[in-house]
């Protein structure tokens, strides 16, 4: 009786779920990429993270801030893992405003690993004004802030197309197959050979889009590798403990005539 009820329950739930496509027909599903960081034991591709940082630095960073990251993060385990020297050099390549000094004056100095990533604009309003009224979002947690996550970011980067007939675009607006609403104010910034990868990888649009998305996925979840590793250990531990407790329970309950 109860079993058939549960069947009914499951069936009606499946029916409900199958109604979903009715609603979101106008949005194109993002491209599914087989990211190395997916799955229970996923980790980031170190080389891809380093290349991705290069794309961010040379292309994205002129408009997009990453204010919650520090240069030291680039050398931490689970990330791009640049060497200490490289991190110092990267940080020092930025002029950071500091102060006030003992005279009350602000001054600039070369960046240190403990500094936060330097933002391209002093504030949101300045960023918005400089980009035709569209604020280029901070990219620290962008992958977590978009439905579809890394797949969506990657899809938008490679999703620029000529608008279909009948769609007119204002100046400074571009057509993108995967962007919600299909209209985007960010131009297509990636073109083949745009950056020269230090490791000699060919910088196709697809490669750069994958690398920078990997970098952004790490930036949003720098704890991902440790989280996955700890998770596996925790679950193994809990499974063993559960087994032991189950056996103890069986033993204890064998004293009474009721099954557990």
């Amino acid at each position, binding site marked *: *009786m109860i079993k058939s*009820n549960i069947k009914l329950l499951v069936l*009606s739930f499946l029916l409900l779920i199958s109604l979903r496509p009715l609603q979101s027909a106008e949005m194109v599903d993002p491209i599914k990429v087989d990211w190395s960081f997916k799955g229970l034991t996923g980790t980031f591709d170190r080389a891809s993270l380093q290349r991705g940082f290069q794309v961010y630095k040379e292309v994205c960073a002129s408009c997009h801030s990453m204010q*919650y990251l520090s240069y030291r993060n680039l050398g931490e385990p689970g990330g791009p893992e640049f060497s200490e020297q490289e991190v110092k050099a990267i940080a020092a390549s930025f002029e950071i405003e500091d102060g006030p000094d003992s005279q009350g004056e602000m001054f600039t100095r070369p960046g240190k690993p403990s500094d936060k990533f330097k933002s391209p604009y002093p504030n949101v309003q300045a960023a918005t004004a400089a980009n035709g009224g569209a604020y280029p979002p901070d990219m620290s947690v962008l992958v977590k802030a978009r439905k579809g996550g890394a797949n969506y970011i990657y899809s938008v980067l490679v999703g620029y197309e000529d608008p279909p007939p009948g769609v007119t675009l204002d100046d400074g607006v571009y057509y993108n197959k995967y962007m919600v609403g299909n209209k985007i104010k960010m131009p297509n910034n990636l073109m083949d050979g745009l950056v020269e990868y230090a490791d000699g990888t060919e910088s196709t649009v697809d490669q750069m889009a994958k690398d920078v998305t990997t970098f952004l996925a790490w930036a949003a979840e720098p704890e991902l590798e440790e989280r996955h590793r*700890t998770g596996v250990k925790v679950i193994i531990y809990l499974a063993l403990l*559960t087994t032991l*407790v189950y056996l103890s329970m069986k033993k204890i*309950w064998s004293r*009474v005539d*009721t099954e557990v």
Partner: protein
Amino acid sequence: MSEQEYVPKSKVGKWFNDRLPLLTLGAHLTDYPTPKNLNYWWTFGGILTFCLITQIVTGIVLAMHYVAHADLAFASVEHIMRDVNYGWLIRYIHSNGASMFFLAVYIHIFRSLFYGSYKSPREVIWIIGLMIYLLMMAAAFMGYVLPWGQMSFWGATVITNLFSAIPLVGDSITTWLWGAYSVDNPTLNRFFSLHYLIPFLILGLVVLHIWALHVPGNNNPVGIDIKKPSKDTVPFHPYITIKDAFALLVFMIIFAGFVFFTPNVLGHSDNYIPANPLVTPAHIVPEWYLLPFYAILRSVPDKLGGVILMFSAIFILFVLPWLDTSKVRSAVFRPIYRQFFWILVIDVLMLGYVGAMPAEGIYLVLARVGTIYYFLHFIVVMPVVGYLEKTDPIPMSISEPVLTGGAEPSLARKVNDKV
């Protein structure tokens, strides 16, 4: 209660116990006679206690690093995620812990509905439980506001605006709740304060909930009164403690699965966008555990009507013990009511689903049908079915065969296998 008076063995123990009978209380809790046929649906009380403690402990640590200010809250959460040692773990346990808490409480409530645990003499346990549930919803809602993301801000705006539907004083009340003329820094501040307070109120109510439970003792799957202690009961320790521990561990494995492998799947991606009063998200949705009520709210074309109906959906549960006219507690022996119980389960799941969808077209129709059934179930089905239904024969005790048709092997035992 029929337990023997506990006398501490040591002199010091006796001296202390005469002044504050903590040892007597401890003995009562370990010896507490519990029906031996409790199934795994009964383990959620212990699981819920674990959830509450987990939320309080992780919450206290988070509060050491969190900054309740509109300009700093979002950044402080990122600080917790990136710079605090194991901050990501603590925060993910806390945020997923809220969902696990509600998952457990819904199972706990529906278990009570199925086995008639809310009926005499356990009405007060039920009512205290509902008060806990109400406070849980308030705590969860305010907690969701704290990261000050887009869903935090707009969720707070939608929910607090509900109070403006009250005639005459609505707008004044809303402004008073906000501490400003819109959801703003003062709102965030007071929500943080209340979010920290409420769990301790819940803790107090949990003590009362358990106290009230220990007066009549546990209901059980057969739903009959039993002699305590007797061969129908087992002492709470070690029998129930070990069983609760086993169930809790299984629960923790699922919990850990969420925390370590899909920590954001139950949240909304928009909440990683900092709150922006000038940009309204396309769909404002509450967390999943509030969706059925959100569906009821939106199913009514009139704002005040929706608000009244939504609150009624919760408050009707308070009078449930008096709406149910059946003398039989457990739905195991109620062939008609049992069917309606499952329809209610489906109905609530459906309301939850349409609550997440835009309030238009088929979803609006489903929401209205679901809302109507929800109320019909409690106002019409429960009193009428309880009155008309011919219930199955009920066993005299957990261990003994049914009252009528003694040839039948112990039905209680069969019941136990089934559920």
